[in-house]
């Protein structure tokens, strides 16, 4: 039993790393633009389908394909921001953007269903099947590669945010948009680029998700976005460190519960969210300002 639990913890941490990457994109978008991007889930699935098409039709390796899908998703993100998000103003803005991104998600889901159908697809390569034995645990290569890539990208994002001028503008905008504007930051440009980056990471998340999850279809976006939202709320919305901790914690928790009660694991996932919010309405690392809107 102890062995199975350890195995579940290892799986949970590895998958949690990938969720962390997707969640960081979401929480970054919330922090800078003050919007909840409901389309994030279906964008992950879009990323997965892009990888699928590249690998099946053009025989490009999944990881090499990311060199194409990441920029593609970045452009899609910037376009979504330019076409829909940028135009919304006013007091109900956060609620409205939530609905707009939901509509965008519906449209993308419809298009994916039209092209790929609803039967489950998965991404295949030699490393999605073969596994390696580490400290007595069998781990499929993709879990390790995905985890390493996710950690590397989160570190890169961290460096971007804390070591560059652009990152300084982003953080300034997160703290106080008006003040950022006053000191000469082009807030609209920062917002567009942040949205693009937040969406671009879904290409990586989608590829790993598609290769590890045992099958996805255009509908999978709903399940994914619900988890990601639970994670970023638990971590405190807009907090990047919080998103990392919460992803690994939640996914590991779910993975461990699955050992005993496979069907109720998801309920425990959402139950944990409810429980934490009853005790701490701002999440683990929530800022007071985030709660006060």
């Amino acid at each position, binding site marked *: 039993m102890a062995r199975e639990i350890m195995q579940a913890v290892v799986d949970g941490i590895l998958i949690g790393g990938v969720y962390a990457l997707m969640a960081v994109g979401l929480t970054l978008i919330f922090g800078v633009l003050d919007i909840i991007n409901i389309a994030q889930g279906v964008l992950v699935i879009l990323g997965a389908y892009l990888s699928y098409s590249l690998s099946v039709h053009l025989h490009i390796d999944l990881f090499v394909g990311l060199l194409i899908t990441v920029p593609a998703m970045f452009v899609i993100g910037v376009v979504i921001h330019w076409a829909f998000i940028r135009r919304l103003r006013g007091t109900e803005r956060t609620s409205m953007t939530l609905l*707009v991104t939901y509509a965008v998600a519906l449209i993308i889901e*419809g298009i994916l269903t039209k092209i790929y159908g609803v039967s489950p697809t998965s991404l295949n390569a030699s490393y999605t099947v073969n596994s390696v034995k580490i400290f007595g645990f069998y781990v499929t290569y993709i879990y390790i590669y995905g985890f390493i890539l996710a950690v590397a990208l989160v570190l890169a994002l961290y460096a971007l945010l804390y070591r560059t001028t652009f990152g300084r503008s982003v953080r300034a905008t997160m703290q106080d948009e008006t003040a950022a504007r006053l000191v000469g930051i082009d807030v609209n440009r920062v917002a567009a680029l942040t949205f693009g980056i937040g969406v671009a990471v879904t290409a990586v998340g989608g590829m790993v998700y598609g290769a590890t999850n045992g099958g996805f279809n255009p509908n999978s976006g709903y399940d994914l976005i619900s988890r990601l939202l*639970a994670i970023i709320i638990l971590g405190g919305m807009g907090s990047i460190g919080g998103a990392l901790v919460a992803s690994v914690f939640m996914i590991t928790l779910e993975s461990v519960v699955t050992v005993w009660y496979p069907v109720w694991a998801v309920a425990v996932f959402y139950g944990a969210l409810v429980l934490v*919010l009853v005790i701490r309405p701002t999440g683990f690392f929530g800022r007071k300002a985030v709660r006060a809107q």
Partner: protein
Amino acid sequence: MSRDRRTEGSGIKLEPALKGAGLALLVAAAIAFPQVYTNPAVTNYGVFALIYVTVASAWNIFSGNSGYISLGQAVFYGSGAYALGVAAHGWNITGPEAFLLVPFAGLVGAILAVPLGLIALRVRRHTFIVITIAFFFIFQLMAYNLSFTNGTSGLNAPFLNWPAASYNTPFYYIALGLAAGTIVIAWVIRRTRFGLQLRAIRDDEDRARGLGVKAMKVKLSAFVISGALTAMIGSVWVFYIGQVQPNTGFNPLFDLTIVLMAFLGGYGSIAGAVLGAVIIEPGTLWLNAQPQFSGGALAEILLGGIFLIVVLFMPRGIIPTGGEWITQIRTRGRPAVIPATTVGAAAAPADPASAASSVGSGSTGGTR
């Protein structure tokens, strides 16, 4: 009549009469509908439209007034449906007597809404939306896995051996009754202190609290009323279509559709929710019946597209934006006293009535 343009007084006298007449006409039309169009395929549209009028109006009582957008309304809809199914099986209720279980379903919805509300309403708006989504998934999961909900195959409602030709008509009138009841409740709430408190919370919760509004109590009451009404219509729905499954009773698209209806018609307006439901639900049904739209993918794209257009170009919905356009025509671009928020536009109980009155006064202005 000639003073109509100059003074507010005659306008106020004229409008309630016209609005009342328009409303009476609408009610008469709604009652006469299944008598005029007896084809079950047509009355089916009517039943579904009324079900969604109720659902959207019930959503509006809580979310429209308080500003807390609930994306988990299917929790109550599905629970109401399952309550009827479980109770009918448990107590061996067959045939039309099962309609007596509709209030029971409402009670179940109300009882569920109390703990859910106590948890979800502790947090502010963005988080509230997400918690309602979380509740939704927990409930769908329970429907899949609990023993009395019968897993994926779901539950059957009591069988009715009514002739197919007139099967829809009783359902139509029951749904009409619930829809009318919900609209009346929404209207009464809007007119009372309770409604004012709710809207004060929507505008500025901290200030409302500072002025002595017991925010939690007010929000929870509205949440419970909304949940009970949604559960009641959910039980009617399951009786009508005959069975409920976890993915039909607890359907994520359902949640979005209601919000879309309310936003299309006019967020926070009673007539808006009704208008949105009457436009979208029959529209979706019709689209799904078309062979080229089968599978739902194209309908989905269309639904999302319409929604984007509405939010981007008439962000406050058809009724408020339409009201502004009408006012512009009436005043011919001159500044007029326009109600500051949606409240004024929302007070119009029915769209055709207000449209008719403004056309009337517009033409009066033209002849002078």
